[in-house]
């Protein structure tokens, strides 16, 4: 387990404000510069630099053969990336929005996730699949899905999502360096989030798979990831007024899942709320809550609760604020953690 503090020290020197989008761009740029087998492909990733500008400048710097505008066909993009990886390249694929990764679902589940296993390890596929995901940006329908449950349910994929600028860089580098396929979920509404970060001396790349405690606390643990981290940190601040000292765990990696960090935290606090934007039913929270309940049974003072998006298709822009788990909803759940029994 790595804590924020320790990581911040390592990169704190020449730090300037940078957005998550910039950190992601920088990660691809550095990876491409270091390793000529890294290729970026997708819709509008070349000349335009991506609709979120995350691939800005890559085509200019590395040429269109390294950063390629493909025809508009997601199965084709991921399917050709499989072939490129079979030949030894390390493709980084951009799906333009969460819901527009669905056409590539068969390639993802039947080939990308399974190829290493199908071939007894002789054909690993080091493909990074970048998927801007989640809501909160006022997008019209099909532009705000939280699709992580689909990927979590598919053995053979790594599924990760950064929540900070620094992690955006480090985790994307790690994803590209991984010899396995990684679904790299980028929280859309954090693209423009800023942090002090030094692109001149980016943090060393740690392998993916570890959660991090973003805030220590004693009363209860908020387990979260990606776009909901900010909400949880705010909720933890607000909770102080109610007398609750909340710990916040940022999972960062959904697959593999860091049971160790999560379980240690919940055993300490005795209470847990899982928070995510994805629909509740059948969403990631079920798996997470079930794991916690199984592993921390005798330490729990209250059932593990979940705060999630409702079990509905993502709402239109004008109603999305009612769907997204916000600070109040998190605090409501914390309030339901059976404090009376405790006192």
């Amino acid at each position, binding site marked *: 387990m790595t804590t924020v503090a320790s990581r911040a020290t390592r990169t704190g020197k020449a730090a300037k404000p940078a957005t998550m989008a910039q950190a992601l761009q920088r990660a691809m740029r550095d990876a491409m510069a270091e390793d000529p087998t890294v290729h970026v492909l997708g819709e509008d990733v070349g000349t335009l630099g991506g609709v979120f500008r995350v691939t800005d400048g890559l085509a200019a710097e590395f040429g269109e053969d390294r950063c390629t505008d493909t025809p*508009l066909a997601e199965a084709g993009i991921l399917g050709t990336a499989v072939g490129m990886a079979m030949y030894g390249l390390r493709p980084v694929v951009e799906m333009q929005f969460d819901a527009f990764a669905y056409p590539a679902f068969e390639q993802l589940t039947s080939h990308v996730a399974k190829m290493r296993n199908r071939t007894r390890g002789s054909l690993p596929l080091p493909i990074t699949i970048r998927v801007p995901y989640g809501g909160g940006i006022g997008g*019209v*329908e099909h532009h705000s899905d939280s699709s992580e449950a689909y990927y979590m349910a598919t053995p053979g994929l790594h599924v990760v999502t950064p929540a900070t600028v620094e992690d955006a860089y480090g985790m994307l580098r790690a994803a590209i360096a991984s010899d396995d396929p990684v679904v790299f979920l980028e929280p859309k509404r954090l693209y423009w989030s800023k942090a002090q970060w030094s692109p001149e001396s980016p943090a060393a790349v740690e392998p993916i798979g570890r959660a991090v405690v973003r805030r220590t606390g004693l009363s209860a643990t908020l387990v979260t990831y990606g776009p909901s981290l900010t909400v949880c940190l705010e909720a933890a601040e607000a909770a102080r007024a109610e007398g609750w000292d909340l710990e916040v765990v940022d999972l960062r990696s959904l697959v593999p899942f860091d049971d160790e960090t999560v379980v240690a935290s919940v055993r300490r606090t005795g209470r847990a709320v899982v928070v995510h934007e994805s629909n509740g039913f059948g969403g990631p929270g079920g798996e997470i809550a079930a794991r916690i309940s199984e592993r921390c049974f005798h330490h729990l003072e209250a059932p593990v609760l979940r705060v999630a998006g409702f*079990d509905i298709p993502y709402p239109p822009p*004008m*109603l999305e604020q009612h769907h997204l788990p916000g600070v109040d909803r998190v*605090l*409501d759940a914390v309030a339901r953690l059976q404090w009376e029994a405790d006192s």
Partner: protein
Amino acid sequence: MKKSSTTVQEPPGAVVHRSTPPPAWQPRTDPAPLLPDPEPYRVLGTEAVADADPELLRRLYAELVRGRRFNAQATALTKQGRLAVYPSSTGQEACEVAAALVLQEQDWLFPSYRDTLAVVARGLDPVRALTLLRGDWHTGYDPREHRIAPLSTPLATQLPHAVGLAHAARLKGDDVVALAMVGDGGTSEGDFHEALNFAAVWKAPVVFFVQNNGFAISVPLAKQTAAPSLAHKAVGYGMPGRLVDGNDAPAVHSVLTEAVRRARSGGGPTLIEAVTYRIEAHTNADDATRYRGDGEVEAWRAHDPVRLLEHELTERGMLDEDGIRKAADDADAMAARLRDRMNADPELDPMDLFAHIYAEQTAQLREQAAQLRAELDASADPAGDAAGQGETR
């Protein structure tokens, strides 16, 4: 060594040798010309104008002017924060308008996300047509009432819907044609392929109408296809393909009319490519200067669908200053009404989030609706809320 040759499992019939495959599996050859004319069909500036119905030409002109004005107004509404986003069809009005006008009452239109104008030209209240882009709901109208499918954002996914609907209508013996719109970029999707194939095999009464406006966001056609034209894709499905100048409104109208007629009379589907140009950026959120030069845009402005028709009608004495002014006034009035209506905040009920998930609400959704209801009540009555929170649960 007789044994060995018989183990190569041979059927008795194999002693006969026929050098060509049995007739049943001969590839079918079609007497009709398979390849589309590579030169887009045109009416304006040609003899064909004389044959055109003057009434239709004036109607088209009026609609083009309204359409152009509609696009301008909708773009303005994005700047005023009244629309979440607007993918403008400025420069493509001839296609949008013609698609709406060639259909009869009972026919269905399957628009893509850029085709709000076609929906409006078909007669739908523009405020309802803009619901998706304003952001108060996903679709602002009852598709069955208007025979207009929801504007489709996932590209090309609406095409199989059009095929299925047309097929169902045909099975029922109903006189219904489906016209499905898609962009040049959308032709690369698997759904495009599957839809055209199903339509051809089923001889479904569908017209596939591709607006080739040169770009899929930033990606130019040359990176999208190596085909001689998008209309040439028809060959692989065994359906007619047709190229038309997409900025020549009477030409588009005529080619679409012919295809609709073919569909209606049992002749099956047609693929039409209209060559046009997206004058504005992809949407108001896009910066087109990143991927194309002004020169190209200017060249296309010189081939503007509104001006082309206006010029032709004026030259032929079918339109004068007065007519031009009248069309503009009419368009302005429409735009003013739209602006006023869009300036009113839509009425929103957050509880609608749970109203249309299933025919019958599940127990889980009832719980969730109750939760939201309680939150809304609490925030309407903040005092009661802030006080009791910790204890009431």
